[in-house]
């Protein structure tokens, strides 16, 4: 008997759930109804910057991703869900359609966080999350003019890279004393900052934007920093993090984690046995991940349950990330900050070459727990594959001595 899965959201994680489910099925156990807010099928959000800077072909590939013609999947684009009634196992879609479900999965993702500073909503201020955001930024960009990116995380760096590529003079404002603070340690962040600065991006560390100032007509004219200094700029991009989209679930009476996100267990299931949440909107044991890879893992965990192979749980706190922007190559993986009790850190820094590598090892000095690479992250795929294992091989490019080609 065919059952119905309703999937709210069609981002990368939602798409992965459908793929995993379809790949694992033998017959047609499940009919999938996917309610998508955006008017286009899921696209690779990590490629936003390439959208901005790339050519027409890359843009069109992103805008029209190929969606397999699958009769078991009904993709309702531009049709967000507006209400969920768990008691009756039904979802109301925009436009009035009601869809009954046997299983409901939230994959609503996250929304950009825009700090509530005065003037944050002036014309010329943008978020940086969707293709539509990217398109708006592209149209507003003026070569040679200053722009401000708020947020020195992965997204902020990508936005800065894109604006730089669009010819703007970019200022990056990071409230902490280092870029990618979640992923990097101080030494790696310095390497990255030096590299970014070398490309003409001015980084303002340890400060915040106190207000966005307007000019005639109310459009953005510049910003004022917390210390009082001002900076003229005609374009502001907020990339200061995201917040899980859990409002629909809240309205449906599902539990939300204290710091946001739909509360789920390590099988990504809510307290309602028919409802799951995956990706950026899900809080597994209270924690939101905000990265695509953990989202994929969650999708696989849920797919396994829907297919009756329920043993799999989401264990991955794998916050591994590799970022290549403006030619800077940084990566962070596993227990990058050596939080495991007894962990030891080994680091090599070549300041002149702008290379840094740190390995975090278990107390035995052998088992790889995590690490950080900056300037040259060629070793990243190998090291990530070695996580949790004894580090018995020397990943290519990791060690400066080997790399110098003596």
């Amino acid at each position, binding site marked *: 008997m065919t059952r119905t899965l309703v999937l709210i959201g069609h981002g990368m994680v939602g798409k992965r759930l459908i793929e995993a489910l379809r790949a694992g099925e033998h017959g047609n156990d499940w009919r999938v109804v996917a309610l998508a807010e955006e008017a286009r099928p899921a696209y690779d959000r*990590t490629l936003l910057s390439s959208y901005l800077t790339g050519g027409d072909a890359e843009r069109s590939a992103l805008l029209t991703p190929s969606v397999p013609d699958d009769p078991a999947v009904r993709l309702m684009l531009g049709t967000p869900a507006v209400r969920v009634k768990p008691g009756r196992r039904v979802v109301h879609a925009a436009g009035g359609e009601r869809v009954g479900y046997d299983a409901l999965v939230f994959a609503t993702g996250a929304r950009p966080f825009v700090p509530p500073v005065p003037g944050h909503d002036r014309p010329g201020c943008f978020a940086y999350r969707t293709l539509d955001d990217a398109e708006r930024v592209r149209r507003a960009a003026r070569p040679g003019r200053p722009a401000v990116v708020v947020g020195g995380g992965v997204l902020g760096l990508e936005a800065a890279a894109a604006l730089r590529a669009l010819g703007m003079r970019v200022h990056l404002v990071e409230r902490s004393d280092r870029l990618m603070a979640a992923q990097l340690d101080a030494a790696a962040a310095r390497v990255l900052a030096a590299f970014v600065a070398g490309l003409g991006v001015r980084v303002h560390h340890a400060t915040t934007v106190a207000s966005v100032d307007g000019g005639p007509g109310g459009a953005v004219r510049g910003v004022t920093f917390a210390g009082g200094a001002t900076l003229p700029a005609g374009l502001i991009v907020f990339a200061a993090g995201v917040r899980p989209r859990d409002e629909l679930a809240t309205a449906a009476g599902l539990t939300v984690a204290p710091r946001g996100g739909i509360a789920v267990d390590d099988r990504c299931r809510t307290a309602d046995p028919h409802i799951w949440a995956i990706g950026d909107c899900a809080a597994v044991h209270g924690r939101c991940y905000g990265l*695509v*890879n953990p989202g*994929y893992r969650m999708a*696989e965990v849920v797919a396994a349950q829907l297919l009756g192979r329920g043993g799999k749980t989401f264990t991955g706190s*794998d916050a*591994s990330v*590799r970022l290549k922007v403006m030619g800077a190559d940084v990566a962070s993986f596993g227990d990058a900050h050596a939080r495991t*009790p*007894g*962990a*030891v*850190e*080994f*680091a*090599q*820094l*070549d*300041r*002149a*070459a702008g290379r840094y590598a740190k*390995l975090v090892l278990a*107390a035995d*000095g*052998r088992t790889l727990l995590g690490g950080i690479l900056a300037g040259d992250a*060629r070793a*990243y*795929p*190998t090291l*990530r*594959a*070695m996580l949790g*294992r004894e*580090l*018995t*091989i*020397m990943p*290519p490019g990791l*060690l*400066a*001595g*080997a790399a*110098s080609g*003596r």
Partner: protein
Amino acid sequence: MTRVVVVGAGPAAHRFVECLHRRGHRDPVVMLGAERRPPYNRMLLASVLAGALPAEAVTLPDLPAGVEAYRSATVTSIDRATRTVHLDDGRRFRYDALVLATGARAVVPRVPGIRWRGGLSPQVRPLRTLDSCVALGPGPVCVLGGGVLGVEAALALRRAGHRVTLVHRHPYPVNRHLDAAAGTLLARHLADRGVDVRLEREAVRYDEGLLVLRDGETVAANTLLLCAGARPRVELARAAGLAVAGGIVVDDRLRTDDPHVYAIGDCARYGRESGGGVARAWAQAETLAALLTGGRRRYEPVPAVVRLRDPELSVVALDRPRPRAADGRAETVTFTDPAGRRHAALEVLAGRIVRGVLYGLPQATAAATQLFDRDLPLPADRLALLLGTPPRTGTGDLPDDAVVCFCNTVTRAGIVAAWRRGCRDRAALGEATRAGTGCGTCVAEVDRICERLGAEPARGPATETGRLLAVGSGVTP
């Protein structure tokens, strides 16, 4: 005939006289020591202080036959015109070559109460001479100065069961040589061993049995052990009109500005190098002995290796002030293990250590010191060096069950299986396994696996063996 007169009877003088003899010098040698004891081994004073060794055990090996050695012989002046040294008792010795090995004297801090009637208060002992190390009285000991000597002495005294306080004016001990991380670990070790460590404190007064610190605290000190450093003894040289600047100035033949007068050891200054302990003193002694017996050696500064001497500690600081490789890639290697109390920080230039601190890494300490001493490149696998394990050889494969593609959870075994089924490149493997089709991060690794699977098995042995046998087919008559 070259008549050699040595002023001093410390380790530098002793080694010089020994080497001179070993190199065949049989002309007269006179050695004038100011102390009443025969030459002794200063490196073992802490052991004597702690009672582990009797004083007579640290006497240096007997001098070679034929050396005229005088004890309690205080030289008062040098007459360079007549090439004669004068002693306080009126004796005189003529020389052809005069070697000044007068050493250094302990620094006595200007703290009221330490000096007494023109000398030192009887409870105050500078840790420099054997006499000051014998017959230590009972009661608490305060070590003033947390440099290398102070730390070694404090630990040795604790082992011998004394109550010990270590007073040091800097934020961590051995601050001249260690970095903050190692210094902090060392302070913790001292505390664990029961040394009462007072950091960032200065002494302002010594009252019999009590040392008063600037903040008013008092430290029980039936004995006050001075470990505040040493200064070269240069009075004799200065009075003789020889150039003195932070030590008796010598050139790379260890010669002063008088061609008949040399200086070695703690009293000598070569370039910017002065003091430096026994390793440097011995290197100078050996070089000078070689030069005076017709050798053509020149003195080369000895790289500074500061190694704490304590059975439980493995701490070393390395410093090469003027690296030979002036340019090249500069690199910093660090290892931190707060829980295991291990730490290393190495500054590397052109692959060689120019500065470094290692704490709690016994094997790496030995290995790094050797590389540093001989200016050899670090192994490519620096982590293996620090951990004391064999290097990873760099050509190994990932384990079969290692996940290569995280986006699609593809293991190495999966890729290998697909390769064996005939997928020979990234595209074909991606189609078969989806490896590399997600974020693309792993494609380099997929390529590498592909390349290694495709590599020919080890070089063809048959032809090469044949070639060697041709090479090795016997001696040509």
